[in-house]
């Protein structure tokens, strides 16, 4: 089973200081697949500093891997020809967090849609481009006649984010990488935008990476949830396993930090005395060791690999130590097989 994009044992290390002596690992030993024969939605959940933005940039080809390889349709991304890069740019689309920043205020809102359609040769004339844009806008629930010709400031944040989804859609991609697409959208519209992304996957077979800090919306849309902390995969598995039977102490802490929308379900707020924050990331061992309530000597010395704990889930915690280890990509493949079997 080939996937559209595959990261294989990727490290991304940023160096700074004199002669690059200060080295900071933004991603460690990450293997992940996107797309392929069974396109699904994978949520990447992490707080600030978790490496989720680096991961987004890596998958979009904006960030080279320090070691390891990112493959596109089975070929190393670093060895693609200019024409293949152009094909990649059409095939893999991005939706970003801020629907206010991505527009040039001087152009009408259809400008960022017309340009790529022409560049990638999907439309031979402007009229044809407009026709495709109208179709895409209708798919995302915008009325083309009320949208085309407007300037960005005349539209709300939710409308602009939908235009960005329409833009991604119009290019007929097989993969969309959505980086916090709803965190700046109002609550009443959040659900609508997520439903749209969900439908793109179900109805058009587009594979999605949904990058977010919000576990509840990750659970709402994704089949597979990957929990990232300090550049390391803490846990990956089916949404059900990760949310309802979490293994990793970090996943459990994240879930406990989310209040239920039902005021009658108790939420232990505590008194705020635990002031641990991501500020001090250890250089070796488990990234979560400095905050983990179950930390052992081993955790500080050696980074735990992803232990193969369950059929559809793996946990990188010494408390879950097994003889077998696995990768996030392998768990995704098993989940895809399970889906295919279930569908038949």
């Amino acid at each position, binding site marked *: 089973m080939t996937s559209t994009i595959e990261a294989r044992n990727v490290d991304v290390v940023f160096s700074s200081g004199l002669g690059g002596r200060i080295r900071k690992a933004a991603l460690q030993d990450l293997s992940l697949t996107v797309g392929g024969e069974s396109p699904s939605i994978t949520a990447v959940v992490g707080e600030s500093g978790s490496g989720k933005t680096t991961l987004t940039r890596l998958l979009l080809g904006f960030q080279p891997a320090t070691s390891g390889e990112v493959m596109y349709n089975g070929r190393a991304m670093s060895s693609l020809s200019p024409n293949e890069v152009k094909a990649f740019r059409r095939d893999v689309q991005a939706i970003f967090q801020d629907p206010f920043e991505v527009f040039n205020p001087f152009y009408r809102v259809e400008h960022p849609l017309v340009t790529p359609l022409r560049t990638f040769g999907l439309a031979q004339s402007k009229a044809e481009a407009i026709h495709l844009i109208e179709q895409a806008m209708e798919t995302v629930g915008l009325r083309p006649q009320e949208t085309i010709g407007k300037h960005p400031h005349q539209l*709300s944040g939710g409308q602009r984010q939908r235009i960005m989804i329409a833009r991604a859609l119009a290019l007929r991609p097989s993969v969309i990488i959505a980086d916090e697409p709803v965190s700046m959208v109002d609550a009443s519209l959040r659900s609508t935008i997520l439903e749209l992304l969900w439908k793109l996957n179900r109805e058009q077979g587009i594979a999605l990476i949904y990058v977010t800090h919000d576990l509840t919306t990750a659970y709402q849309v994704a089949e597979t949830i990957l929990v990232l902390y300090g550049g390391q995969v803490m846990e990956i598995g089916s949404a059900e396993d990760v949310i309802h039977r979490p293994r990793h102490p970090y996943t459990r802490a994240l879930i406990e930090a989310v209040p239920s929308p039902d005021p009658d379900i108790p939420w232990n707020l505590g008194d705020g005395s635990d002031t641990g924050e991501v500020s001090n990331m250890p250089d070796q061992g488990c990234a979560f060791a400095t905050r983990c309530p179950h930390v052992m000597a081993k955790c500080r010395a050696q980074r735990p690999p992803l232990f193969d704990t369950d059929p559809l889930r793996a946990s990188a915690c010494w408390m879950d130590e097994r003889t077998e280890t696995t990768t996030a990509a392998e768990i995704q493949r098993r989940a895809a097989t399970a889906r295919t079997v279930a569908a038949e």
Partner: protein
Amino acid sequence: MLLDVRNLSVEYVTPKGPAYAVNDVSFSLKKGGRLGLVGESGSGKSTTVLALMRLLRGGRIEAEAIDLDGRELTGLSDPAYRKLRFADMAMVPQGAMSSLNPVLRISEQMGDIFDDHGVRHGRSERRAILGDLLERVGLSANVQDRYPHELSGGMKQRVCIAMAIALGPDLILADEPTSALDVMVQKQVLATLGRVQRELGAGILLIGHDMALMAHFVDDLGVMYAGRLVETGPVRRLFAKPRHPYTKMLIDSLPSFERRGTFKGIPGVGPSLLTRLEGCPFHPRCPMATDICRTKRPDPRPVDAEEPRHLAACHLAEEVS
């Protein structure tokens, strides 16, 4: 009552005419109580708080009454208001990141609050007082020697909480104090805010957009839409029996760990603040709207036989289910 606000309105002058940011908002908060205001961007929730603090830039405030602990604030002079801030009511701002002065040590900016209110301390006494304040919000006393850039977002927000409680105010106004923070830090900071508020016995008005967070923090909740308070009441009552269709739809739209692949968004977009819509401001998006909703504006009224404080501004409140 600690705070009683009656018919507060705020208008901004724009090149396209007046923008009605807040319209006839009334609410009250009892001593030591917790009131939350939720709403989307542009619903007027932050403007309401800034109007209470009299920190609005350019907006015109009108109010029948703003009563703080028996004192009428509407006619108060600006110098008197200046004395009131921090001493009687203090604000925890939205972006702690940008509300601290980057070139002053924490001790200097915290010290300003005392200096401005004519509170004099000796050097070591001031140090001890600031250290104690910082420890109350879960920071170490020597954070006062640091500059803002040396602190994380959560630490800065804690400093802002320490500043808000410095003079022991009766009322804390917190404008989305945790929305820029990571989930786990958000929980810790909110817990800290709740603890110091309780220790102080102050009332708190918390502004936010996260209904689930509110559900677990406040006693009473107000839901704002298009500059109006469309529903108010005890938070559990509101969640159990919402009486305004907007509140009901907001609650239904919340994601939870109980449901996957189901989505209940609210169709449409909020109205422009530049026009005064006839009838109910929510009618263009309301699935229940009838003729009366398009022509007559509903005023907040009691809608719950068992809970007289539960008010909703909806003609069809009794039919919401």
